[in-house]
């Protein structure tokens, strides 16, 4: 063993030890968070996510330029790591390589891949540097990020590749007999360029390049934990442990145990967040994809989901590094880093979660902080108070008389569950109308239309009438878990009293809440959204409609509801229902549609708050819809209906907004 190998072995062991210590430190920091036992179930789904989103970079490819670039670096890194392992062992054990351990074609394939991927990585890094330095991609330029770090990392990666080619090439020049042009064609090309060197000079150059590469590798390993490129280490585990693409339903908020003696409600500081949210902070690459699709951010509000994640990480570090915690006690995550204004700007649309390439859940951090504001400190926008009070007093966020809930159905011959139960009958489905559908004048038209469709199709259904209450979604999304659980439990009691199993509803918020979140409190029902229900009735030919094949061709565009689309992946049913009702209709898509759809601005309790900063989200969305040239906009949510109809009206556009139920009901045979 030469002195060089001894020296390298010492450096290598130290570097590994240092890296291990850093990882242990980071794990210790994660343990400062709250326990979270929802991360190890359903391993097949988790492995699936790991492969799809992690290894095959599914979400990375949602950006058509950055996608292939990042994938080249990522896959290149994975493949080159094998070569690096060979390299490192070779540094410790003189003359070691993988060749004797594999049959020739396998080793040849391995070596060829090292060369080719290293070249691809250099190309991708060049492109990334070019983008950062000259193109000034908007989402990458922002005060909240660490702009120099990526430049350092990219240069580092390029140097790793260059030194690799250098030591391979100089080795070939020094020992022409070992040349393998077919296995390492690019290294060979480089070697040709240096063939004028004497073998002894090349040997020195090889040693220099080899050491440079070795030190760069070990240095890189130990720089990562201090950089935003910690995501290299954290993102794959994060994708595996994340629940944002399942297991379970997406977008489901965790239930709080209100009976337990909680010291802090929701989260005021990083130590109140789940350890998984802290890992999210480590995994964030600061890529800004979330912020670039955030409806609040893009219309000029203060909120940026990327900043939320950067703040989580910054605060965790400052807290963990402080020897005396009392010195950092007063700069908590809430208020010290993230302001109330940011938190109340969120529409809970889930676009950030959908877009994040490493499955970070920004929304759950926002919601935990909101819980602390409301439950712990009773701090919320003044406009929200009447909604809270009315939900508590009258079971609806609007101050309507609960006795009027079933008024829309007067004269329609629709039984209530109570009436049916009295006759000893049971409906096929319960129609859950929701507060908007019961009280809002515009939404009531949808309610009636859907009821007419069901009646015409011979569906035996009933409503709860005044026994129905708000499902609690607005309260929950505004952080008021206490009020939410009160309402949800009341509703579950009512539903169970009648033994309800199947529920249909025209409101995506009721749909998501009852179907996906009531199970937390013991309410288990099959909930179907009216778009899916109508579509299946149409498919079965149960709806007596007139399909006009002639006449003027109307152009529709469909606006996706966040709680129907991103939260529940219902994209096709409403579109199909429209096509079946209007066979000659022309359906055009907005640039942002389906899982990239832009929120209407009403979710997350924003319906009840004023929108004074920046452009109104519903105006932005209506403009996008109008720009398609459609003469009608279809929606499948009463909240979207209000938001879209308001802004279309205010622009004096001669365009109608319809719920899909209204479109279908309009074709019913008289």
């Amino acid at each position, binding site marked *: 063993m030469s002195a060089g190998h001894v020296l390298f072995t010492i450096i290598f062991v130290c570097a590994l030890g240092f890296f291990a210590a850093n990882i242990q430190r980071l794990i210790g920091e994660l343990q400062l968070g709250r326990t979270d036992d929802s991360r190890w179930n359903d391993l097949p789904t988790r492995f699936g996510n790991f492969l799809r989103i992690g290894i095959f970079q599914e979400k990375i490819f949602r950006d058509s330029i950055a996608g292939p670039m990042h994938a080249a670096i990522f896959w290149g890194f994975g493949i080159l790591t094998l070569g690096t392992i060979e390299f490192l062992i070779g540094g410790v054990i003189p003359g070691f390589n993988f060749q004797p351990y594999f049959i020739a074609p396998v080793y040849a394939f391995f070596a060829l891949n090292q060369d080719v991927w290293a070249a691809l990585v250099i190309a991708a890094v060049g492109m990334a540097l070019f983008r950062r330095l000259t193109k000034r991609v908007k989402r990458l330029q922002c005060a909240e990020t660490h702009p120099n770090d990526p430049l350092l990392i990219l240069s580092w990666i390029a140097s790793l590749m260059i030194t690799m080619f250098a030591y391979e090439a100089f080795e070939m020049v020094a020992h022409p007999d070992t040349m393998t042009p077919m296995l390492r064609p690019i290294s060979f090309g480089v070697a040709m360029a240096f063939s004028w060197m004497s073998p002894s000079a090349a040997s020195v150059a090889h040693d220099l390049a080899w050491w440079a590469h070795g030190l760069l590798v070990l240095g890189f390993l130990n720089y990562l934990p201090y950089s935003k490129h910690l995501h290299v280490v954290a993102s794959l585990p994060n994708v595996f442990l994340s629940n944002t693409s399942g297991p379970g339903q997406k977008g489901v908020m965790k239930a709080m145990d209100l009976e337990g003696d909680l010291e802090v409600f929701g989260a005021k500081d990083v130590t109140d967040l789940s350890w998984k949210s802290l890992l999210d902070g480590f995994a964030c690459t600061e890529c800004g994809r979330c912020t670039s699709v955030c409806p609040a951010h893009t219309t000029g509000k203060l909120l940026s989901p990327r900043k939320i994640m950067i703040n989580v990480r910054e605060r965790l570090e400052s807290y963990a590094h402080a020897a005396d915690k009392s010195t950092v006690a007063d700069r908590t995550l809430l208020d010290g880093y993230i302001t109330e204004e940011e938190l109340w700007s969120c529409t809970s649309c889930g676009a950030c979660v959908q877009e994040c390439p490493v499955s970070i859940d920004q929304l759950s951090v926002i919601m935990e902080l909101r819980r602390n504001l*409301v*439950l712990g400190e009773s701090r*919320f926008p003044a406009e929200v108070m009447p909604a809270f009070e009315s939900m508590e*007093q009258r079971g609806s966020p609007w101050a309507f008389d609960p006795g009027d809930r079933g008024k829309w159905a007067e004269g329609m011959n629709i039984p209530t569950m109570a009436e049916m139960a009295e006759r000893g009958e049971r409906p096929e489905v319960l129609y859950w109308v929701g507060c908007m559908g019961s009280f809002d004048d515009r939404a009531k038209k949808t309610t009636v239309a859907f009821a007419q469709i069901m009646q015409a199709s011979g569906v035996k259904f009933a409503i709860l009438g005044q026994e129905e209450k708000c499902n609690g979604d607005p309260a929950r999304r505004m952080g008021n878990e206490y009020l939410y659980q009160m309402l949800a439990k009341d509703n579950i009691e009512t539903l169970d009293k009648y033994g309800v199993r199947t529920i249909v509803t025209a409101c995506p918020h009721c749909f998501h809440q009852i179907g996906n979140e009531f199970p937390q409190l013991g309410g288990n029902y099959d909930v179907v959204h009216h778009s899916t229900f109508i579509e299946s009735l149409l498919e079965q030919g149960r709806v007596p409609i007139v399909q006009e094949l002639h006449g003027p061709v109307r152009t529709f565009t469909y606006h996706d509801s966040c709680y129907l689309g991103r939260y529940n992946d219902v994209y096709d049913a409403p579109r199909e229902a429209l096509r079946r009702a209007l066979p000659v209709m022309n359906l055009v898509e907005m640039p942002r549609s389906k899982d990239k759809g832009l929120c209407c601005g009403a979710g997350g309790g924003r319906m009840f708050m004023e929108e004074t900063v920046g452009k109104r989200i519903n105006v932005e969305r209506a403009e996008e819809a109008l720009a398609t040239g459609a003469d009608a906009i279809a929606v499948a949510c009463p909240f979207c209906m209000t938001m879209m109809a308001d802004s279309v009206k205010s622009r004096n556009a001669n365009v109608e907004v319809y719920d899909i139920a209204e479109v279908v009901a309009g074709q019913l045979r008289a």
Partner: protein
Amino acid sequence: MKIAVCIKRVPDMDVRFKIGATGTSVDEAGLKFDISDFDGYAVEAALQIKEKANAGEVVVISLGADNVQETLRKAMSMGADRAVQLKHDAPVFDSFAIATALAAEISTGGYDLVMFGRMSIDTANQATGTMVAELLGLPIITAISKLDFDGGKVKARRELEGSYELIECPLPAIVTIDEGIARPRYPSLKGIMAAKKKPLETKPAQIGEQSYTLDKMELPAERAAGRIVGEGKDAVPELVRLLKEEAKVL
């Protein structure tokens, strides 16, 4: 400063009422109850005084059946320190009888300030606070929208039409609270949890003699539905005709 706030449990007014079977009470089925609006402002004002001074005690008092305990807990979840229920199961309509019981309780408490709502939002007699002041021989300022203290004196502002009055009087005193003094806080879950552990004392109400009884309750006659005559200036002649001939107001 030791402050007492008298709070009344009243039904939410945004619903349609039904008269109960006896004909002398409201049918409570489906009604939701809460602190009367003006009493809520009073609780908030009292809490703000205590918080500003960082000292003192806020005691809430309510007369009624056991369901007022819920109302008292709500006030404590906002931040009141303790509560007293003056138990009386049958509803009392005579303000003087109520005032007598409240005055008896207040006289033993050693309060510096006693607060009432300007009126209850259900029966709206505007009488109780004033009667208690008279019974206890204390000074009273009614319907105030602002409150300050200066040494042993209370300074209050009353809104008049287009102007206002500033009045001061020595403590102990009684005030009745108008709108605008403070927006009641929404109880935090922390407050709700804490309220469960705060003391709530129940005593029999020593109500005075009731000098009047309630004979009958009746709902106002249904109003005829509104009518849209038309839009724009073309509708004016028809509107004028209707006002003249049907409404007979012109």
